[in-house]
């Protein structure tokens, strides 16, 4: 077990593509860290550099305090699980799991013991003599995990290990991976572009985009205090709503009406360089059916009336969709997010998603009076996507 430190690590491919720009990241011993981001943002490249499968162009990588830039993968004592599982087709499950141990020239008895133990943990004992071709996707995935854990390596690296499984199995395996990691306490770097996996699995999440780290933090921090538009839109499902907003005297003019500026927002906007054109972000759960809001709450928010497009009743609560007329929020970051269909769950631009209590009586087609919590809004600078409402707090970057 060991900590992993990336110190200004960059990757430039021979064809000139810079896939990773000066990444700084400290992964503590035993930590479960997730790299998440849209396709092509450099997650696999980063992981492969930690593994030693790709050379590091500049910067330093330290594992357990030791510089390993020039060490071959086999000398780094790290195990990796691949999206394709990469099981050796000519070997049985047993031989697959024993392979790293055999290469390490361990005693035959020790190998049998370790493989047996891993098979027991992963419930593969009945399949030890099968070839990978005769296993189901979930079983293959577990064999791949088994091959990684038999060695008790310093760290696990996993590159989208669950993305070839169907939705239900993915949820089950997610739990198993999490439990296994807690049991073993091995430092784990896990790549995914599924933000649910990112939020549920990791101790900390690293959001990447275009080869840069956007934000590092525990899942709740990323959700509550995103440092920029990209993180705000990427994390959360359904995604945060974004509206164009203009500062006018003491009001924030938006398609939902003129919102009063107070408390948090006033501080953010008082800065001399605060822009006049903004993007307002608010999560679906920060809306409520106005008739259900208690009086002492009501003052903290803003009420508006709008025609309901669609009501989706989830039992525990209701998703209510509205159409918003007027100016759309627009910025390069939002376009990037919309382009990545796999990750972010962005609603169409003119649609507002709200999550109301199950008791709400709003109906399709009728007008509804909705309350929004002004304490929870975020304001972003459209030019660079920065969250200006965070400036007075201790923003974690």
């Amino acid at each position, binding site marked *: 077990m060991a900590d992993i430190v990336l110190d200004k690590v960059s990757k430039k491919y021979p064809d000139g593509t810079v896939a990773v720009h000066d990444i700084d990241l400290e992964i503590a011993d035993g930590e479960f860290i997730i790299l998440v981001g849209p396709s092509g943002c450099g997650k696999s490249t980063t992981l492969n550099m930690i593994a*030693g499968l790709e050379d590091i162009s500049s910067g330093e990588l330290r594992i357990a305090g030791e510089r390993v830039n020039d060490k071959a993968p*086999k000398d780094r004592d790290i195990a*990796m699980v*691949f999206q394709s599982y*990469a099981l050796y*087709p000519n070997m049985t499950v047993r031989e697959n799991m024993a392979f790293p141990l055999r*290469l390490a020239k361990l005693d035959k008895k020790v190998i049998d013991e370790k493989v047996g133990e891993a098979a027991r943990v992963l*419930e593969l004992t009945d399949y030890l003599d099968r070839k990978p071709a005769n296993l189901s996707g979930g079983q293959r995935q577990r064999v791949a995990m088994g091959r990684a854990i038999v060695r008790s390596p310093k760290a696990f690296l996993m590159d989208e290990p669950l993305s070839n499984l169907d939705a239900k199995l993915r949820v089950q395996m997610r739990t198993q991976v999490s439990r296994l990691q807690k049991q073993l306490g091995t430092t784990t770097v896990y790549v995914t572009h599924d933000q649910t996996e990112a939020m549920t699995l990791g101790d900390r999440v690293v959001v990447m985009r275009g080869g840069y780290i956007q934000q590092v933090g525990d899942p709740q921090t990323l959700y509550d205090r995103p440092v920029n538009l990209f993180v705000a839109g990427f994390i959360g499902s359904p995604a945060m709503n974004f509206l164009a907003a203009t500062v006018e005297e003491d009001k924030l003019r938006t398609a939902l009406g003129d919102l009063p500026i107070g408390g948090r927002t006033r501080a953010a906007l008082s800065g001399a360089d605060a822009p006049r054109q903004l993007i307002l972000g608010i999560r679906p759960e920060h809306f409520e059916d106005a008739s259900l809001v208690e009086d002492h709450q009501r003052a903290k928010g803003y009420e508006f009336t709008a025609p309901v497009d669609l009501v989706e009743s989830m039992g525990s609560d209701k998703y209510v969709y509205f159409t918003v007329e007027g100016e759309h929020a627009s910025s390069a970051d939002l376009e990037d997010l919309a382009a990545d269909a796999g990750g972010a769950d962005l609603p169409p631009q003119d649609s507002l998603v709200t999550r109301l209590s199950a008791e709400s009586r709003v109906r399709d087609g009728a007008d509804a009076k909705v309350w929004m919590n002004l304490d929870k809004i975020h304001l972003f600078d459209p030019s660079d996507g920065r969250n200006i409402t965070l400036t007075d707090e201790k923003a974690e970057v």
Partner: protein
Amino acid sequence: MSVQEKVRIPAQRTPKKKVALSEGKKQERKLGWLLCAPAAIVMVAVTAYPIIYSVWLSLQRYDLKFPEDREFIGLTNYVTVLSNNYWWTAFGVTALITVISVTVELILGMGLALIMHKTLVGRGLVRTSALIPYGIVTVVAAFSWRYAWTPGTGYLANLVSPDGAPLTERASALAIIIFAEIWKTTPFMALLLMAGLALVPDDLLKAASMDGASWWQRFTKVMLPVMKPAILVALLFRTLDAFRIFDNIYVLSAGANETSSVSMIAYNNLMKGLNLGIGSTMSVLIFLTVAIIAFIFVKLFGTAAPGSDDGERR
């Protein structure tokens, strides 16, 4: 979850799946036959007649120099050929050429395939230049080798043995023949092997290096097993081809000094000696040997595909 699975899978699989499988397999086999049928019919129509006719000729005494002596003599020709030293010498020479050239070609071809597979810059150029020998007509290439090895005029003969005449001594002539074979067909081998290399997923090699395998271990424990079917195809093609070697010998040594292959002596008996009976017998024997080689390879193929030994879910 998997506790359920453990109980469910073996219980459900054994009785149910067998029935379903044999049903599906029958269908599949039928479709397979149907799809092969046109090709198989054409093949039989084209090849069956000459084969049957040579078998028929091989059972007769039939020398065009003495046509009136033609007579059905059963297996006598086979006894004559198989008890003859010339035949066995030629058979030995052929086997020697086959084994050495195919082995060397496999090793060189693998090396070449690895290089072509790895090269990133000028890939097209590397591949094209490697394939040039295969593109040259064998007889033309053989003549250029002959001139090269002819004392006095040939640059190689002058270089290697200024006083001797390498093509007139048995050992050196055979070595030159084998060399010409290897030079010519290594690219073909490399091409087939490269197709096999493309079958090895990158992730598999990455996984092996993470598991601690050195380059050689990755090659022998991961690449070779996955490539095995492609290797067997390449070996089969080349072995069959090499066993029928004719043109290089014909041009380089003309079979002098006991350098004839079986195809050479069959040709000599048929075309030069005009002995249709003996010549056909030799052809049939060559045919049988080739068939046996093919059979052995096909037997090996059967277990070559990964996971095919108990391949249910492929």
